């Protein structure tokens, strides 16, 4: 997946002189996860800028640059560190179009990795995307495959408003084809990963793969679960979820983030309303328990949702 991200950044830099990258160690070092490798050599230190460890200034500068004719793509090394950039993101970037009466948008992108599985501990593993989905003015996407990582990042950079691209650390090493001339993926459009008639599992990021594994487990029991990859969390594809629900009549929402007050809660609430007549079972959520992400391998394995938990939720909603 990092190669797909790298290609999207390289093509955007090549096509539009207004695109710049800024973040900690993205230049000479090529980025902490290698997503920006080689880009500074190719596009120069002016457009691929190493910053000091100053998240508030990185994000604030991205806002000011975006209001002054550039299309900055900022990287925050771990999503946990967006806490240090929240004023610029929430009070400035998200508000400017609205509070300035539509004079101009803030065409910036924030790339940031979330997720566990690396024993990175409580401050380097969090999935905080629900916070950002809650802020009017921001868009949030979360790719599950290299092809989507490429296409969603291109769409994010082209977007006239601020877009947060949440990348799952555990998926960085994932291999996958990106076509030579990929179709653009509009922000806000989900995709059916695996069709099925008995239940719908809505997921995003790493949970898409757990959901697919769960569907395989369930298939062995004769249950055909449909897996929907949201791809975009804000806005999210309500029509696609409703359409799937209206065929399967059962809904499970799965994500790596903490279950309580999460993206799944929003989807469940909307479908309890818009999809009320379609439901033949309770809408169930599968997410992380309400604790920080633990460090030790055994603890983290127990903490993270997985295919077995998703499959159990599907069985329960079919009961």
């Amino acid at each position: 997946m990092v190669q797909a991200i790298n290609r999207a950044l390289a093509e955007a830099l090549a096509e539009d002189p207004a695109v710049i990258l800024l973040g900690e160690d993205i230049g000479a070092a090529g980025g902490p996860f290698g997503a920006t490798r080689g880009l500074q050599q190719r596009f120069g230190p002016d457009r691929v800028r190493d910053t000091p460890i100053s998240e508030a200034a990185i994000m604030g500068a991205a806002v000011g640059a975006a209001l002054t004719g550039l299309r900055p793509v900022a990287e925050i090394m771990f999503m946990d560190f967006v806490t240090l950039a929240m004023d610029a993101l929430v009070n400035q970037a998200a508000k400017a179009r609205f509070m300035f009466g539509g004079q101009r948008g803030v065409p910036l992108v924030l790339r940031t990795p979330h997720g566990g599985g690396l024993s990175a501990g409580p401050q380097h593993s969090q999935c905080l995307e629900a916070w950002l989905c809650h802020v009017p003015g921001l868009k949030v996407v979360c790719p599950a495959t290299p092809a989507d990582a490429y296409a969603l990042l291109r769409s994010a950079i082209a977007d006239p408003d601020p877009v947060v691209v949440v990348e799952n650390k555990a998926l960085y090493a994932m291999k996958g084809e990106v076509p030579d001339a990929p179709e653009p993926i509009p922000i806000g459009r989900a995709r059916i990963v695996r069709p099925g008639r008995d239940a719908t599992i809505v997921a995003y990021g790493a949970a898409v793969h757990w959901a697919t594994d769960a569907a395989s487990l369930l298939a062995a029991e004769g249950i055909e679960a449909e897996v929907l990859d949201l791809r975009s969390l804000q806005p999210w594809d309500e029509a696609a979820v409703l359409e799937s629900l209206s065929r399967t009549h059962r809904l499970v929402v799965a994500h790596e983030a903490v279950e309580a007050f999460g993206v799944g809660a929003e989807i469940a609430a909307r479908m309890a309303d818009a999809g009320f007549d379609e439901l033949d079972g309770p809408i169930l959520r599968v997410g992380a328990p309400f604790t920080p992400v633990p460090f030790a391998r055994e603890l983290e394995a127990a903490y993270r949702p997985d295919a077995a938990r998703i499959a159990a939720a599907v069985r329960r909603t079919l009961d």
Partner: protein
Amino acid sequence: MTRMADPLALLRTMLLIREAEMALARLFADGEVPGFIHLSVGQEAVAAGVCSALGPQDSVASTHRGHGHAIARGVALDGFFAEVLGRASGVCGGRGGSMHVADLNRGMLGANGIVGAGAPIALGAALAHRIRGTGGVAVAFFGDGALAEGALHESLNLAAIWRLPLLLVCENNGWAEFSRSDTQVAATLSAWSAAYGVPHAEVDGNDAAAVAAAAAEAVEALRRGEGPRVLEARTHRWRGHFEGDPQRYRDAEDAARAAGHDPIARSRAALLAAGVAESALHAAEAEARDAVAAAIAGARAAPAAEWADARHGAYAPAES
């Protein structure tokens, strides 16, 4: 060669700011201004002086006490008053109000409700000017209370490392909201500028001509690519932190002393001493009064902001 600002033009700008803000104080007391407002009465010389050194390509990030910056930057009074009164014809459609007056086509990146937040935004604007080769510079206004904000330190550090054309202008009025700033900030601005290797100049913030000259000198250095500058203007906040602030934390003498440093009286006296006819000054005063009265009348007559227009304003309209 440093361009000399026209002293009469500086006075005109200050008169416009003073008229506008005193009118806002009356409108606020009469309940015509929704929300709350922070007036910069007494500090007009800083806004007028600094903005006189800027060209149309330059960018300004302002503060919650930002009316003077907007007016000095040339934001039209009609749109300004309509915004602060929450009318549809406001420069931001009545969605922002006093703390968010922005006019992006004039490089006015907005007043700001968050103390210190303008500095990183101006930093980014300076970066954009550098990368796009516009020749423009960026100015961040902030108060002495903002010296305790981390974003300001991060911004000065980054501007210094990248040698960006960023002018950080501290309007040092001695107050951090409801507290004396010397009880809150351990270092002086000159010491912390020196720590980052950034040239710092201090100027009498009640002397518009002095501010204009110092700002022009700094802006020229920025345009020559010499890296960021800090300009500290000592001035006085005549009124409370916000309108209606009972200022129980401030003794009456302090407020009275502040009024003894009126930048407008000072500029007026200097002009008279230089031989400008008093009638010319009266004409400038009348002009400011008329302009403000007309803008207020326009704002009052303008339709109220409509929710239907704002409802879908958080994002660009979807492409069809």
